[in-house]
């Protein structure tokens, strides 16, 4: 039997599959289907220092092979997360990534400091939310912005720090390198791509926020490309995500350079997707005589420039 365990920044995950932030809440709804220990980890719904009510509806629009969302970081705030959700989550036998977003660098730092005093396993710095006016993506789209926020948070963060990158940038390799240089222990990528749909009858955008984040199979090739490009620029592990929907996608993302994976949108199509992806991945490893997941990471054999 192949070894499914992986290590991210010194934290051992029982398998490489992590529920992506925003798709999984704090896990309770999905625990009805299977024990959450089925998953290597859970990245919690993005939390902010204070409670946020989120954007007005509609927040969801379907797209070819995917969807747009503009939830806008609706969450109960860090204190209630720690009091009401974390104790329950801790009992589920899986790794916990606390995904944090802020309006200002100071808020990010304060949250990193607060969460460093709890038993979350990793902190995922969300500098890539496309659906809020402040605190999301404006820190994540320039090298200077990334370097600034990551290095500041680094001083307050005593947990392994994962930086979640935005795909809405010109050169993902530069951004990845900036995050690593500023002290990130790992990267997770990609967040959603900014998109828009319009109702041709009313001439109104479908989303009340006008624009939203595109996810699902439609973004998968973009995510593979970006993970592959980032892999060539950094030494720290990359948690790959963006449209991973089946075990074949999982293998592909690992080959591109991911050390672990997050899945989100596919859960809406099939809540049992994690179970199926892990079964398929295990079979693929066994059938191909691959001893462990890390043996796949970054093993794509790209063509050389001369073809």
């Amino acid at each position, binding site marked *: 039997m192949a070894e499914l365990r992986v290590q991210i920044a010194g934290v051992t995950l029982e398998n490489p599959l992590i529920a992506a932030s925003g798709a999984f809440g704090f896990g309770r709804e999905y625990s*009805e289907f299977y024990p959450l220990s089925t998953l290597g980890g859970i990245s919690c719904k993005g939390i902010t220092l204070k409670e946020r009510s989120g954007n007005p*509806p509609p927040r*969801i*629009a*379907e797209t070819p092979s995917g969807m747009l*969302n503009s*939830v806008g970081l609706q969450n109960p705030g860090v204190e209630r997360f720690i009091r009401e959700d974390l104790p329950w989550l801790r009992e589920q036998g899986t790794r916990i990534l606390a995904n944090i977003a802020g309006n200002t660098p100071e808020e990010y730092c304060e949250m990193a400091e607060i969460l460093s005093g709890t038993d979350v396993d990793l902190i995922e710095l969300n500098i890539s939310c496309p659906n809020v006016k402040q605190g999301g993506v404006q820190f994540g789209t320039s090298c200077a912005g990334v370097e600034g926020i990551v290095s500041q948070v680094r001083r307050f963060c005593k947990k392994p720090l994962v930086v979640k990158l935005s795909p809405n940038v010109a050169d993902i390799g530069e951004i990845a390198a900036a995050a690593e240089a500023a002290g990130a222990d790992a990267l997770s990528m990609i967040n959603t791509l900014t998109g828009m749909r319009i109702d041709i009858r009313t001439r109104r955008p479908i989303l009340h926020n006008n624009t939203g984040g595109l996810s699902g*199979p439609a973004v998968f090739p973009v995510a593979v490309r970006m993970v592959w490009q980032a892999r060539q620029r950094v030494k720290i592990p990359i948690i790959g995500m963006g449209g991973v929907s089946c075990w074949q996608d999982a293998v592909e993302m690992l080959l591109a350079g991911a050390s672990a994976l997050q899945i989100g949108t596919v859960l809406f199509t099939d*809540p049992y997707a994690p179970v199926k992806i892990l079964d398929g991945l295990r079979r693929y490893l066994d059938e191909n005589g691959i001893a462990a997941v890390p043996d796949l990471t970054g093993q794509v054999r790209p063509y050389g420039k001369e073809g």
Partner: protein
Amino acid sequence: MKRYDVQSCRIAAKREIAPGIFDVWVEAPEFAAAAQPGQFAQILVPGKTLRRPISICDAADGMLRFVFQVRGGGTARLAKDSAGDAWDILAPLGHGFSLPARGGRALFVGGGIGVPPLLFAARQLGAGARAVLGFRSRDGVILEEDFARAGCEVAVATEDGSAGYHGLVTGCLDGPDPDAVFACGPTPMLRAVAAWAEEKGVPCQLSLEERMACGLGACLGCACKLRRDGREEYGHVCKDGPVFDAREIVWEVE
């Protein structure tokens, strides 16, 4: 059974009961036993990312009944399936109607494709109930006999006057005062019904609709503004609803 789960369910019967409106019974003994009036299911559409939320119209004899309208590519695809085909169904979901003890007089108010979500509740509260069902025109009228068989006194309204009362369904609300009102339909209708019930001092429950992703309360996509404990906040149609007490809904201004 789990509170909700995914199962592959064989279609037992399918019929087009009005132009573009389909009546489908699926074999689902566990879902049928667990389902409550007002709950819904998320049905997988091959090739689509998001499931389609469809209200449970009825549950009986180990089967679930869905009556849905073709609105786009997803529902059109579902309408192509027929007896013997299987649907991948996530159910039963959401918070349904809170039914009062029998004996009270219920008023059901349905508008168009908002009529089916009321039938299951009407079958439990039928005797002595009134059902006021509104449609655009005669050929869109659905489930009139079903409500009658449930024991309801049925009034049909059509906007073009081609059947029953000529006008909006809200024009035939007046009658013996009900003890409880249950409504589903377009937003202007729901607002009017809620206002009418408020004036009469009658408790009123409304079934809402919103664009939805997970259907479970995890993704927070299907937001609706609620007033709870004196403060306004976004609740979610899939988990807090689809049925809400009319007094807690904060209607958005267009």
